[in-house]
C-alpha cells in the first residue's frame, strides 16, 4: 500500500478532532506533479507557481503541526498535573484506609490510561507527519532534481512538533503514576479474572485504544519495506506480539468508534 493510503487510513482511525490536523499529503503530491509536469525549467511560469505553492504549503503544514502540537502539549501538561494530584490523593486515601469509591478509583485510573494513550498518539502524530514530510520531500527532489529535502528536513528536525522529549517524559511519568494508583487501590478492584473486557466500558476507551492499535499496525506496515528502500529508510519493525494485537482487533471489531 502506498503511504498516501496508509496515512488516510490512519487519519480515519484517529481521534475525530485530530483528523484534519494531519499532513495534507495528497495535495502536496498533486503540487509536485504539477511542478514536474510543466517541464524542468524553473523559469516557466506555471512550474514556478506550483513550486511556490508547494513551498508555501509545506511551511503552512509545519505551522499547523506546531500549533496543534503545542496546544495538545499544553493540555497534556495541565491534565498530567491534575492527575498526579489525584493519584497522590488516591494513594494517601488508600494508606489511610479511607478508600475512595470504586467509581472514583475507576475514573482516576481510566483518566490516567487515557491521558497516557492520547500522549502516545500525539507522538505518533508527530512521527507520521514527519514521515510524510520526508517522503514528499523525497518525491519533490526526485521529480524536480532540486535539493530541497536535506535543508528542509533539517529545519523540521528543529521544529517544536518534532521536539517530543517533553511528551515522552510525561508518558513515562504517567506510567509511573499508573503503577502507583493500581498498587494503591489493588484491594478494591477484586481479583482480576482475565475476563473479556466489557464493551460497555466507556466508548472513549475504545477510541483511544483503537487508534493506538491502528497506529501500531500502520507503523508496522509502513516499515515493512518499500519500493524505494534506501539508506534513508527505516528498518522493518519487530513483529508485534500477535495475541496483543488480536485482542486489540477483537475489541476494535466489537463496536463502532464513538467518542
Amino acid at each position, binding site marked *: 500500500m502506498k503511504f498516501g493510503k496508509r496515512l488516510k487510513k490512519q487519519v480515519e482511525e484517529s481521534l475525530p478532532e485530530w483528523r484534519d490536523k494531519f499532513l495534507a499529503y495528497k495535495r502536496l503530491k498533486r503540487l509536485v506533479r504539477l511542478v514536474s509536469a510543466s517541464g524542468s525549467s524553473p523559469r516557466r511560469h506555471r512550474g514556478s507557481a506550483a513550486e511556490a505553492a508547494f513551498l508555501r504549503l509545506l511551511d503552512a503544514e509545519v*505551522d499547523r503541526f506546531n500549533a496543534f502540537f503545542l496546544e495538545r502539549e499544553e493540555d497534556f*501538561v495541565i491534565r498530567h498535573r491534575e492527575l498526579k494530584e489525584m493519584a497522590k490523593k488516591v494513594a494517601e486515601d488508600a494508606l489511610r484506609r479511607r478508600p475512595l469509591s470504586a467509581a472514583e478509583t475507576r475514573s482516576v485510573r481510566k483518566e490516567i490510561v487515557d491521558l497516557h494513550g492520547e500522549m502516545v498518539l500525539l507522538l505518533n502524530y508527530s512521527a507520521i507527519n514527519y514521515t510524510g514530510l520526508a517522503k514528499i520531500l523525497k518525491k519533490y527532489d526526485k521529480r524536480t532534481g532540486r535539493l530541497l529535502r536535506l*535543508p528542509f528536513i533539517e529545519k523540521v528536525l528543529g521544529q517544536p512538533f518534532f521536539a517530543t522529549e517533553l511528551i515522552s517524559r510525561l508518558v513515562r511519568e504517567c506510567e509511573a503514576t499508573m503503577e502507583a494508583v*493500581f498498587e494503591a487501590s489493588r484491594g478494591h478492584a477484586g481479583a482480576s479474572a482475565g475476563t473479556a473486557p466489557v464493551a460497555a*466500558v466507556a466508548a472513549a476507551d475504545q477510541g483511544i485504544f483503537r487508534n493506538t492499535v491502528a497506529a501500531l499496525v500502520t507503523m508496522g506496515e509502513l516499515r515493512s519495506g518499500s519500493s524505494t528502500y534506501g539508506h534513508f529508510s527505516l528498518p522493518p519493525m519487530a513483529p508485534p506480539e500477535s495475541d496483543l494485537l488480536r485482542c486489540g482487533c477483537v475489541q476494535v471489531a466489537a463496536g463502532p468508534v464513538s467518542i
Partner: protein
Amino acid sequence: MKGTKSDLWERNKACSLFLERRFNLMQSQKSRVLGAMSSSLPILPNPLKGSFPRPCNPQHIPMSRQLPDDSMPLRNDIHQSASLHPRAGVIGAPYSGYSASPLDSVSNHDSQSMVAPYISQSSSFEAFQSLSDNTPGTHTEAAWFTSSMDVSPLYTDNIAAPDDNRIQSIRPAMTSDGTAKQNDWWADIMNDDWKDILDATATDSHSKAMIQTSNSATSLPAVNQSASSHSMEICPVASPPNSSNASVAKQRMRWTPELHECFVDAVNQLGGSEKATPKGVLKLMKVDGLTIYHVKSHLQKYRSARYKPDLSEGTSEKRTAAEELVLDLKTSMDLTEALRLQMEVQKRLHEQLEIQRKLQLRIEEQGKYLQMMFEKQSQSSTEKVQDPSSRDTAAKPSSILNQSANKDSGATMDPNRTGDSAKTAELGERSSGLGVKQKLVEIESDTEGATDDGSKISQEKPRKLQDS
C-alpha cells in the same frame, strides 16, 4: 507545601530565565530579519543578561511565526545579535508594523529606512533601534552562509542529546543557497502584496536577486494570508483568514511543566482557578515574554480541566446502591483488564515510536555527515585536479547526480554549484578515494551495528566509488 515565598521566587526566576532565553532566540531571529535588510547597523548587548546567571531547563523551543522559515543557527557570536531584554510587546510589534503599513519606497537602500517607520510605530522603539543595530561585520549572504557552515557540526550534538540543558536551537539548514535563506527572512516580513510592489519598482540588484528567488522561496502563509489568492492552497483548518494581527498577539507559547507549576502557584495565591484573573496571574508569575493572551487561554484550559473531573465523579455517584455494587464488581475487574490491555498497547506504541525516532535522527545525522564530507573532499580536491580523472568525471556528472537523487544518498550536490565544481566534487569522490572510503567504512560500521540500512550504505557507496 509549595507555597513558600522562596520557592516561588526560585520558580519565578526559573520561569523568567528560560522564557527570556526563548525570547532571546526570537530576538536573534528578528535581528537577522532586519539584518537582511540593513547591512551596517550595530547591535547593543543585552543589559540584563547579567542578572540571570543561573541556567535553567529551557527544553522548549520558542514559538514564533518565523520558526518554519528560520534556518540559521542562533549563535550570538556569529550574528552579534546579543540577546536583548525580551518584552512582550516587542514580539508583536514587527508583525503588526509590517503587515499594517504598505511600502512606499522599495529599493534596497530604502529598505533600511523602511525599517525605521515601523519601529517607530511599535511601543518598543528603543528595543528595535538597538535590534537593528548590528556591529559592522558585514551581514552579507556569504557571511551568513559560511557562518552557518561553521556552526553546523556543533548542531549534531543537539540532535544526539536533545534533553540537555541548552536551548534546542534551530538546526541550521545545510543548504548552500545563501540567497534562499535570506529570502526566507525576507519573505517572513513581506507578504505577497509587497513582493509585487518590490517586483515593480526594485532597481537595486541586491533586492532584485532577493525578489527573484523569493518567488520560489518559502513564505509565511499563515501570517500573510489576508489578501493573497494563494490562501486557497493553505489548509483553512485552524488559521482564520485575516490572521495577521491576531497571530501577532497569539505567539505560541510552549507550556512546560515548570512553567505550569509557576502558573498554578500564582493561581492558588489568588484564591483558585475561579477567582484568579489573567491579569493577576500574569503579574504574579513575573515571567518575561508571557502575555495576557497566553495566560488567558491557559487559565481557560486549566479551569475546564479541573471542572470536568468534578462532574464525572458527581454523575457516577448517581447510580443506585445495588446497581453500583454489581456494576462495581464486574466492571472493576473488567475495567482493570481492559485498562491493562490498553496500557500495554500504548506502551508498545510508545516504545516503537522512540526507536523509530532515534533511528530517524541517526539517519539524518549520517546523511548530513556524508554530505559535509563530500563537500570537504570537493574543496580539498579543487586544488589538485588531475586531467585523466577529470575527463572521466566530465562524462558522468549527471548520471552520478541522478543516482544521488534517486538513492537519496545525502552526498547530493547542491544546485548552486557551477558545473565545474560539481565535477571537482565528483573528483573528490574518486581521486581521493582512499580517505573517503576509510571514512565511509567508519560510518558504515556504525550504522551496521544499529540497522539493516548499514548494509545498504556499504553496498552503495563502494559501488559508486568503484564506478570510475
